[in-house]
């Protein structure tokens, strides 16, 4: 079985700070990580590899430094990696991102494609389903458990707001995974070493069968008109109240909201 993993390197958004003067995000010095939902997909792929003898190929579109992340995932047990990196891909929205990824995926053998449900930077959760659509394959999103693979069909558990569903989906298909589905295994020194023994191939725009009008910023139907950070207007802050006076103050507000 051939498993392809779509992975994205993201800034650790919990470490992000806002510049109080300019009101912009401070990105320098923020560590980059494997997107948490994707790390769950990596772990699932490794479990499938152990059970069904799969070959794992990882694919990312991103800047050259995304190579670090690919090496790490090779170290964890993936077999082969592709880095789609080209200035012409930059600024892509999810339509252009999935169009580019799909154009490359068409050149690979795959039975199962795993993507994270959502990347913690762009936060759209759109690249998985849009890649599946561009490849004309089935999808199940919000997968919280891969139960088994049987006769070319995946049995999975999908999370909804207030319930879950068990679904059966024939291969080839694309699943998007939730970071809560497993506990990724740790890495050791040997893993770090073997990461460099495995093939990592760089792909540019010229390697793909795509018109320039469909990639990057220019190929994107959506445009980011402006960005801003939350303008904060705090209410009254009460320091140095005794516990009893604080309780009285809260109760006086609460009163208006009681039935």
């Amino acid at each position, binding site marked *: 079985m051939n498993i392809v993993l779509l992975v994205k390197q993201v800034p650790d*958004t*919990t470490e992000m700070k806002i510049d109080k003067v300019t009101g912009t*995000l401070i990105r320098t010095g923020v560590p980059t990580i494997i997107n948490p939902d994707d790390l769950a997909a990596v772990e699932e792929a490794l479990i499938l590899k152990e059970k069904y003898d799969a070959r794992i190929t990882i694919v990312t579109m991103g800047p050259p430094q995304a190579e670090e992340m690919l090496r790490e995932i090779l170290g964890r047990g993936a077999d082969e990696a592709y880095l789609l990196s080209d200035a012409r891909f930059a600024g892509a*929205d*999810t339509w252009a991102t*999935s169009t580019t990824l799909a154009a490359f995926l068409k050149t690979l053998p795959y039975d199962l494609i795993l993507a994270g449900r959502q990347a*913690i*930077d*762009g*936060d*759209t*959760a*759109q*690249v*998985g*389903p*849009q890649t*599946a*659509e561009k490849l004309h394959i*089935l*999808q*199940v*999103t*919000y997968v919280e458990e891969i139960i088994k693979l049987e006769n070319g069909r995946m049995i999975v558990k999908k*999370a*909804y*707001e207030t*319930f*879950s*569903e*068990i*679904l*059966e*989906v*024939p291969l080839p298909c694309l699943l998007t995974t939730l970071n809560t589905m497993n506990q990724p295994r740790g890495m050791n020194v040997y893993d770090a070493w073997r990461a460099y023994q495995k093939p990592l191939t760089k792909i540019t725009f010229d390697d793909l069968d795509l018109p320039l009008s469909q990639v990057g910023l220019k190929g*994107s*139907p*959506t*445009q980011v*008109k402006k960005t*801003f*950070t939350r303008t*904060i207007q*705090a*209410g*009254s*802050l*009460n*320091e*140095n109240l005794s*516990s009893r006076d604080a309780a*009285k*103050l*809260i*109760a006086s*507000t*609460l*009163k208006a*909201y*009681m039935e």
Partner: protein
Amino acid sequence: MVTKDIYVFAQQTDSVFENVVFELLSEARKLCDTIRSSRPDFNVVAVLLGHHVKASANALFEHGADQVIVCDHKSLAHYSTEKYTDVVSRIITTYHPDSLLIGATVVGRDLAPRIAARVDTGLTADATKIEIDPTGEHPTQLWITRPAFGGNLFGTIVCPNHRPQMSTIRPNVLDSDFFQHGRTGEIIEFGFEDETETLVKFLQRIPKEEHGVNIAKARIIFSGGRGMSGHFDLLEECARSVGGVVAASRGAVDMGEAPKDVQVGQTGKTVRPTLYIACGISGAVQHTAGMDKSEYIIAINKDPQAAIFSVATLGIVGDALEILPHLAEEIRKLQQHSES
């Protein structure tokens, strides 16, 4: 190609609509009424897919739709990515809507990207605000604002050259204030002659562990963070006495203080009560993303620098473990007062 109308996807289960459908209809109604000053032909159109659902179209008219496109077919009885993508995409290529709004539910976020990729248009994700081009240059161009980077950054997204302009919109953020009893409109039936089975097979539905409270519907929420660990009973007592419920930050949920389904925030629920009382919660953006639309926010935290104070209407610097027992007593006094 001239496009017109604002379409709203009317997500339903057994003819019961998701509340976000009414939120979107109210919003579409406002946008449409503004657009009509330059494009009087614009309507709000609801798109209703399902089986035996036609009768429920009335609710869509009452909440703001001028027209309802109904596609009634047995293979649409349950949501299926394949079938729903097919039908909605065909509705788009038949009628050429100018925009299409879909609730950012699990179903909406499964369906919308698939449709946008099929009809080759732009899709804004999980938006919290929609407005018409404030520069006045393009009277039908939507400016759609959404949080990204875990709520640290907001982006305003436009889709200038492709139609429909698509967006998923986060539930519980917009008002569902439009309602006219008995309001009617036109039903358009959309044919679907598909007899094939869905390839993804539904095997079983499993209810999530029920904890009895739905925090998304509560009016008063006492919410606890790691600063309340070991003392959630204090929150329970206050909440119970005022008819409220207890919710929690992820910090507290991860420590096992409260079940996952009362977690507020980016990976929990978005709540919008009239009163939200945050106790021992630091106010990480992933938390505040789920509660900052509350009407009135009270925060109690030991740390005067805590970020929660930046969203609080009333901030109290102090020890919640000491304040809450006093608060319970004050509430009792208030209740005795109103009884006598």
